[in-house]
């Protein structure tokens, strides 16, 4: 396959043992693929399972059936059945993920939060910090905040730190969960630019965006998640 991501019949059900074992089907028959340089936007109402699909591609949620093919270091692996060590290797060198909320480690300064995806891949700390600074500047995070941990920042600032962390590395796959949700117009425009630059470099992206205007600007293809609804 030439696709970076090739998902076939993936499915996910939550079993809530604390609620008497109630089964909560989330998605079923999820099938789509993403080519290099392409941004696929998942659409559908809240609760349709969009974020769950992203989390399955990242290996954060388990996949109960089907296959999640990922091109990783020149081979195709099935993330749905990969052992933990392989998933970690995929996250280090293939898949980046901008989650909805930043989960920061206490005490770690913003620059280092952003630079970390580079340093874990062996980039020298100084160079990684410099690249982090460039991105933070583009995303309008004032320089006086860079040495502070982001936990005290506003929601919009935290989201921009999260975006910088997601966009800093040159990973071939990027998953974006509402990257523009709490940003003003100027910063939304920066994110649209960043996405366009990633496309030029051949990065395959899967995004969730509720803003119609942004979706129109970034989407090469739209995959309607309602067709994967798993309502029993």
């Amino acid at each position, binding site marked *: 396959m030439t696709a970076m991501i090739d998902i076939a019949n993936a499915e996910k059900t939550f079993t809530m043992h604390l609620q008497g074992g109630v089964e909560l089907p989330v998605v079923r028959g999820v099938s789509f693929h993403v080519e290099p340089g392409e941004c696929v936007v998942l659409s559908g109402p809240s609760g349709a399972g969009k974020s769950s699909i992203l989390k399955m591609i990242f290996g954060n949620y388990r996949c109960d059936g089907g296959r999640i093919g990922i091109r990783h270091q020149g081979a195709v692996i099935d993330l749905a059945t990969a052992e933990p060590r392989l998933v970690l290797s995929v996250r280090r060198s293939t898949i980046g993920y901008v989650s909805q909320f930043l989960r920061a480690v206490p*005490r770690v300064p913003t620059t280092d939060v952003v630079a970390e995806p580079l340093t874990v891949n062996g980039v020298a700390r100084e160079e990684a910090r410099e690249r982090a600074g460039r991105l933070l500047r583009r995303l309008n995070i004032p320089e006086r905040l860079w040495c502070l941990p982001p936990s005290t920042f506003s929601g919009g600032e935290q989201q921009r730190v999260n975006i910088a962390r997601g966009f800093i590395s040159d990973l071939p796959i990027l998953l974006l969960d509402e990257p523009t949700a709490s940003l003003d117009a100027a910063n939304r425009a920066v994110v649209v630019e960043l996405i366009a630059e990633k496309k030029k470099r051949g990065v395959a992206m899967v995004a969730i965006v509720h803003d119609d205007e942004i979706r129109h600007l970034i989407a090469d293809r739209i995959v309607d998640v309602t067709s994967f609804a798993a309502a029993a």
Partner: protein
Amino acid sequence: MSEPTSLDTDQPLLVAEGLAKNYGQLAACRDVSFSLYPGEVLAIVGESGSGKSTLLQLLSAQLAPSAGRVSYRMRDEVLRDLAELGEAERRFLFRTDWGYVHQDPAQGLRMAVSAGANVGERLMAVGWNHYGRIRDTASGWLERVEIDVGRIDDAPRTYSGGMRQRLQIARNLVTEPRLVFMDEPTGGLDVSVQARLLDLMRNLVSELGLAAIVVTHDLAVARLLSHRVMVMKGGRVIETGLTDQVLDDPCEPYTQLLVSSILPP
């Protein structure tokens, strides 16, 4: 479908097979098997009495198993059964190649001798004998664990709880071990002190490429420090996987209970 070669060539550092420990009728630990790879941090979580501390003692050869075995890849790359090691090899493991961080620093430190001697002692045990070099290395380590070098001649009984724990970590890491066991390393500390210690441990583990097995009842500690987690209940491992996967998408009833019992800050 082939896996990347970097993983294929990787050999496990420690292998547990069918480990069990019985105390009379009580099965404190039953049928535990897993492999730990170099640089990997594994958290063992579960409530008091779940068998996690017994398991840690079995893995670190402080307790003999009732069944099963633990093997460790020595520096000559040969995987050896811990039960069959000679005295010299065991000593090498305990003094050099392994670290053991106790919940109570008083158990892992000598409280009446100076901080510098606490760190230097492990070096002398492996043959260092140049006083100046030992002292320089000890001060370097105090700095790394954020202890004021001016306190190097003070005994740890004059230190705060957080400082003692950081000193215990320095004492363990000074010989550049490849594997560190930690038993509730943040257990007795204030929350603010815990965050600092966790951040420090996280950095040291990744800078030194250490493998670690961390026993904790605190899921936040597991999330921050570990790559993989094993959930224990009644002496058994009931769920295992990537840490964020087990914590964000727990499958077993007991794991769901543990995760849902965390109070929001």
